[in-house]
């Protein structure tokens, strides 16, 4: 396949940035999207041009490092995957592909397609944990049976990879899906109930401070989430937040 690429280039955080056109030929449909960018970069490098910076690591859809807004959608046109799992067979010969970084005030661009998502870490640091020290003396793991249904829901929420697609897809750049996934995971487990009140209040406060917008229930985040994190988690977090505020 031969493709036209329009890629966001931005030298550093201070640079204004702009879209730049590239042509790429002989793209195999079996390539992943990032392998296609590897080929482009090899080519740019050989021509003495600066390769396009983009984040990536595991290339199997679990580390959450890769991002990219492709043709206006986080992680591109396919569903339930990250950019590294997107394959070129989803495109056809002659297509023009727009590639941009995830856009949000809380995710400033570092270079080209690389953004800084450490706001997510700071939200987790505000309460995304259970305060139990490592001692080797915690009770036996089977001492508290947990209903399979709740354990499964907690697991589903816990599969969030922290990629930021929810924020990038949201017109308000809201991080509600991300935050609610962690709040839900712990709210559904007896171990997590002990600190539930402080957790939801602290995490939401931090989320607001970091400059993420609010949720207006459009649901784009759920559609674009590579792990299919459900909007029900946002409802659960709202419930948790309301109870916590009334305490």
């Amino acid at each position, binding site marked *: 396949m031969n493709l036209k690429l329009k890629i966001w280039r931005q030298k550093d955080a201070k640079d204004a940035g702009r879209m730049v056109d590239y042509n790429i030929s002989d793209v195999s449909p079996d390539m992943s999207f990032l392998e296609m960018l590897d080929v482009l970069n090899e080519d740019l*490098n050989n021509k003495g041009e600066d390769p396009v910076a983009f984040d990536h690591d595991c290339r199997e859809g679990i580390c959450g490092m890769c991002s990219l807004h492709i043709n206006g959608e986080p992680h591109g046109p396919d569903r339930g995957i990250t950019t590294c799992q997107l394959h070129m067979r989803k495109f056809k010969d002659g297509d023009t592909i727009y590639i941009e970084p995830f856009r949000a005030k809380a995710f400033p661009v570092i270079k080209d397609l690389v953004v800084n998502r450490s706001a997510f870490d700071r939200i987790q640091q505000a309460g995304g944990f259970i305060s139990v020290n490592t001692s080797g003396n915690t009770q036996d793991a089977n001492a508290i049976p947990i209903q399979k249904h709740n354990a499964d829901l907690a697991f589903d929420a816990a599969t969030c990879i922290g990629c930021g697609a929810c924020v990038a897809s949201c017109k308000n750049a809201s991080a509600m899906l991300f935050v609610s996934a962690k709040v839900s995971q712990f709210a559904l*487990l007896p171990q997590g109930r002990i600190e539930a009140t402080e957790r939801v209040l602290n995490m939401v406060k931090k989320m607001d401070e970091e400059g993420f917008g609010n949720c207006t229930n459009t649901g784009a985040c759920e559609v674009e989430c590579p792990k299919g994190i459900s909007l029900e988690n946002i409802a659960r977090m709202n419930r948790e937040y309301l109870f916590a505020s009334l305490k």
Partner: protein
Amino acid sequence: MALDSKIPNGPISDKWTDYKDHINLVNPANKRNIDVIIVGTGLAGGSAAATLAELGYNVKAFCFQDSPRRAHSIAAQGGINAAKNYQGDGDSTFRLFYDTVKGGDYRAREANVHRLAEVSANIIDQCVAQGVPLAREYGGLLDNRSFGGTLVSRTFYAKGQTGQQLLLGAYSAMNRQIGRGKIQMYNRHEMLDLVVVNGKARGIIARNLVTGELERHSAHAVVIASGGYGNVFFLSTNAMGSNATAAWKVHKKGAFFANPCYTQIHPTCIPVSGDHQSKLTLMSESLRNDGRIWVPAKLEDAQAIREGRLKPTQLAEEDRDYYLERRYPSFGNLVPRDVASRAAKERCDAGYGVNKTGEAVYLDFASAIMRYGKEQARIKGFDDSDAALVKKLGTEVIENKYGNLFQMYEKIVDENPYQTPMMIYPAVHYTMGGVWVDYNLMTTIEGCYAIGEANFSDHGANRLGASALMQGLADGYFVLPYTIGDYLAKDIRTGKIPTDLPEFEEAENNVRTQLERFINNKGTHTVDHFHRRLGKIMWDKVGMARNAQGLNEAINEIAALREEFYRDVKVPGTMDSFNQELEKAMRVADFLELGELFAKDALHRNESCGGHFREEYQTEEGEAQRDDENFAYVAAWEYKGKPSEAVLHKEQLVFDNVKLVQRSYK
């Protein structure tokens, strides 16, 4: 220098308890005056950072990714072993110990492995207390599955995302300490050298990958938790950024590097599709609980399948060769990884491969789907002779167990594995070798520790499935916090280590020189070009089967490639900016040295054991033939300026509790 493993005396089951009873402790007020650097934030580094901070030490943690949550432990799929015996199927600490030593083909240190088995149960308790959502049964208790090389079900799991859930548990424990200010987290930082002062590890030189700035960080101890070196093969199941640089830099500063040739080639990975391939994807070993591995029994059928004239589902049962079940009736599809990988290679080399390249075998779930479907139909009171219904119910069970893996497969290969068998082939996955450590997990440099995959200690020549997560968390949560305290107790009066010492100056200058060299080189080929060529040499001559001639060739070819790399590599951009090509250049430079030592180690080990298979040393049935008389030792290499001049030190392995026999899974 003689290697002292510092294994405590006494019976194996008492060693760790006795050791803990008699070590030096640091009082809480003094811990506040002690700094520890941890490089890497995977299961080992993350759990160590959290635990040491909980204890009161000041921790500085470093990762090259944009968040500690992205470390490659996140990608571990199948599960974590623990001797809980929740299934009542005869498991025990001793059995886990025994299986691990046997699985490692009798090339691991008994005392370390026993300690690992002892603390394994604590790991599960700890993780559940942290809110890690491990899989449960309907009664609310934890579920288990089986992994290769064992006859019990001791593997705890969270669908095919166990590593993710355990790592996020460790990450949450880290976050709590970052929030309290007890861990200072340095994201997008890469360690580029170790600083040794008066024989002790006292700090590191790190590069801020966003600004390019070189930074000096001091501490009373340095812990390397940077994972394995599988990317020396270019194509592996490791993440793109996984690298050996931190481990290799400590090696060059005096830490011995042990058993580099012990590499795990994992039997169930998605086959290579073309030249553009940047990495390989694992399909969890847990799939072998339910998947049956086969190739066509007749060569003409294999050829017809390769040419697309025949579909695997059209092949009758009697025309299929379930070669693992045939060769190893007692363990069947659940033989250890090294055995399964070699068996796949043997069939493909004989011409029975099933994809275009001839390098793939089938992993088939059809019979598991029908078996589960029938069971579900009976439970639910449906007609179990209704094939369509049974298939539907069975598919749901499989989806529930392995859904994310099947989805990954479908996205990559563009085939539905519920309807047609998966194609798989072995790929580089894990490295058992690594930095040599004693019982305390300390390297041959005082105050420098190595934990998790970065060290060599627990898996011998072959790691069993679901044991890497166990070892990473055991080292970080339950072992290092004791052993490092014993060392740091001597450092309570030292005070802060200044970073203006000449040793810091020198290390920083050396790093700067290397970086400048790459930027100013202006060669003609990219870093990836050299990395791919290194990978090809490694895979062809130092891969699944090795022989003396190939290894000698590899040693020469790698040395020549390294020279060419320094002469001709091209790195664009500048040093003082975000520069991914420069990052890669630094890592590949180290792989080009490690690869040569790897081949040299493989050449010197005139036996086959576990993941190290020398064609000259095999039994009549093609199984690995060990030479216990001459090679029951750890090969620890000392750096002497060039890999070719590395000096071999031997740590003799003593087996008091396990009898050395020919490993049999028949």
